[in-house]
């Protein structure tokens, strides 16, 4: 990822907009979860559009747009174009915006069946057959991963922008954080399926820290060998259907995970 193309314009505070597409609100909530930093943050930037927090709406353009959620309707596919046009620096926050998220499970199924199974009157429902990341529709300047994002990484992205430098967000796998936390390896010691070796760090190895396997909610690390991991899991007794489920969850459409899950899907 790249540093901001240019420092914030003018002497004023950079303007910020927060957008929601198909999502659970958890990543934008992470901004409000910065309880100790929030009031300082809203003093350092000028929040001009953030419906979850304020009914005040100021028209763009905006210096920074934070985008949560994936594209799942024709209307949203048009809306993201307008967001891009009004934004100098566009940051996707979370697994939905960055990889299509849990909604990406629909990409492996027939959405018509889904509509029929949830809604009595399918004719009322407008939806696309796929859930796609923001980058499939418009250029994205920085992608912050996680389901949800780590709020301190979100703060780091904003701080880096204010300082005119690149955000320091690691691309190495969860294993590195897990070792630093002095956890016993759940995969090696207990044979628990764990995506830690192929998943991007950032959460602090939360799942192995409570004795369960990582389920990959930060998506693939910068360089991964998913086939080697799948082979190890197979040696430990995982059947193909389980491998499909393991690689097909909160970031099912990240290319590396999608390829691996398809290779076990008969």
């Amino acid at each position: 990822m790249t540093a901001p193309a240019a420092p914030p314009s003018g002497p004023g505070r950079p303007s910020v907009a927060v957008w929601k597409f198909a999502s659970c609100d958890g990543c934008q909530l992470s901004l409000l979860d910065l309880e100790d930093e929030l009031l300082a943050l809203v003093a350092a930037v000028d929040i001009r559009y953030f419906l979850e927090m304020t009914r005040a709406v100021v028209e763009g353009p905006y210096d920074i747009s934070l985008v949560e959620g994936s594209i799942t309707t024709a209307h949203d596919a048009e809306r993201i174009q307008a967001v891009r046009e009004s934004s100098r620096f566009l940051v996707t926050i979370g697994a939905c915006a960055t990889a299509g998220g849990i909604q990406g499970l629909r990409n492996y199924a027939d959405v018509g069946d889904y509509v029929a199974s949830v809604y009595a009157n399918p004719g009322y429902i407008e939806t696309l057959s796929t859930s796609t990341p923001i980058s499939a529709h418009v250029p994205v300047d920085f992608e912050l991963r996680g389901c949800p994002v780590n709020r301190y990484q979100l703060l780091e992205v904003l701080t880096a922008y204010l300082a005119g430098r690149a955000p320091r967000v690691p691309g190495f796998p969860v294993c590195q954080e897990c070792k630093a936390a002095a956890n016993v390896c759940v995969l090696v010691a207990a044979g628990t399926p764990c995506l830690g070796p192929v998943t991007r760090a950032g959460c602090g190895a939360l799942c192995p820290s409570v004795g369960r396997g990582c389920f990959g909610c930060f998506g693939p690390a910068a360089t991964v060998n998913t086939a080697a991991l799948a082979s190890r899991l197979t040696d430990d007794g995982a059947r193909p259907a389980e491998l499909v489920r393991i690689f097909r969850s909160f970031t099912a459409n990240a290319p590396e995970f999608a390829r691996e899950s398809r290779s076990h899907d008969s």
Partner: protein
Amino acid sequence: MTHNRNYSVDVGALARVEGEGALHVVVRDGSVSEVALNIYEPPRFFEAFLVGRRYDEIPDIAARICGICPVAYQMSSCAAAEDAFGVAVSRQIQDLRRLLYCGEWLQSHALHVYFLHAPDFFGLEDAVALAERDHSAVERGLSLKKTGNKIMETVGGRAVHPVNVRVGGFYKAPAQAAVRALAEPLHRALDASLETVRWVSGFDFPDIENDYTFVSLRDPGRYPMEVGRVVSSSGLDCTPAEFAEIAVEEHVARSTALHSRLFGREPYLTGPLSRYALNSEALTPLAKEAAAAAGLGRECRNPFKSIVVRAVELVFACEEALRLVETYEAPVPPAINMPVPTAARALSDGEQAGTSDGLVGAGATEAPRGLLFHVYEIDAEGLVRKARIVPPTAQNQLPIEADLRRVAETGLDLSHDELTRRAEQAVRNHDPCISCAAHFLDVTVETVP
């Protein structure tokens, strides 16, 4: 403004709610002719995603329905799956779940009271503007919220989408020292929550009382949260499984969320007003005192005063969490194993392979914004065959629309801007989580020429 006898109120993108929705009110010949809460959040199909997943994946997937109340989804889904397997968890596990849930109530209610709802009572756009007027109030809200998040991180491992919850209990019991350390911030939060009740009870409230059918859980002797039977002010008293049959859902054009009625007829309300009306005698001592001091009777039918009830529930959540923290003993084991039936066992029961009905279970818990119930059918391999999830906001859509009608009827002499603000407030009174219900809310007030 309202010399004009024909006009409409439209809010196209409602702010300070979770998710995306709209509101539409039409006044013709001086009377309200049409009221609609439109939920246009994209449909999210969670029930379909769950089909074919293993039972132990349910809590993590269901949590993604809502980033504001993931614990509610985890608690209801665990309860439903455990009901399907016929397994009861230990008292220690149940207590730890209740502590985690107290954390979610604290963070969610603090967010709603201070960030989403209170600005309305000052005619302000948001909590940032509120902080300019009353910095200490917003600081108090943030500190309450932080304590809630601290509990969720200590017990659940993460504030948004906790990782430590599993069907049967927890992956790992938190250390006793870590849980006991929550007492100190909780004592401060208790003071802050009592101050919150005093603060909000001094707000000006429109004089409106509505005739709700209240529905909530009841857990004898305790304010309801993670377990209980479903009761109503109209005399209902049933299990979550029975309630799932009684609460009939309807799909209408204006919403990607389904509408609920009791027996397919009677709209009903869930949430703080309902919990309070049906369980106020079970509140903890300071919460009960605070409610009395704030002038709440045995029940409250003014939806604008839901902020006072929510503040009382903040006091309750602090007192209850303190009790649980002080008596905490790590559950051993941290989780009960589910007896996943094998195909062989199904056959020995005289059923044919592949044709058994599977195990069906229902679970209901009290999300911060109301009753959340789940029903699952799980097959012999432990895979989900059917899922039904009914969030509080879907159940509350009809009473919210009824409230809007009352607000419009009693606000015909207000200016267009005032009526728009009040209509928005009427929706926020119920802390709708539109992401849960489907996913977005938008309100409009416009004049019909």
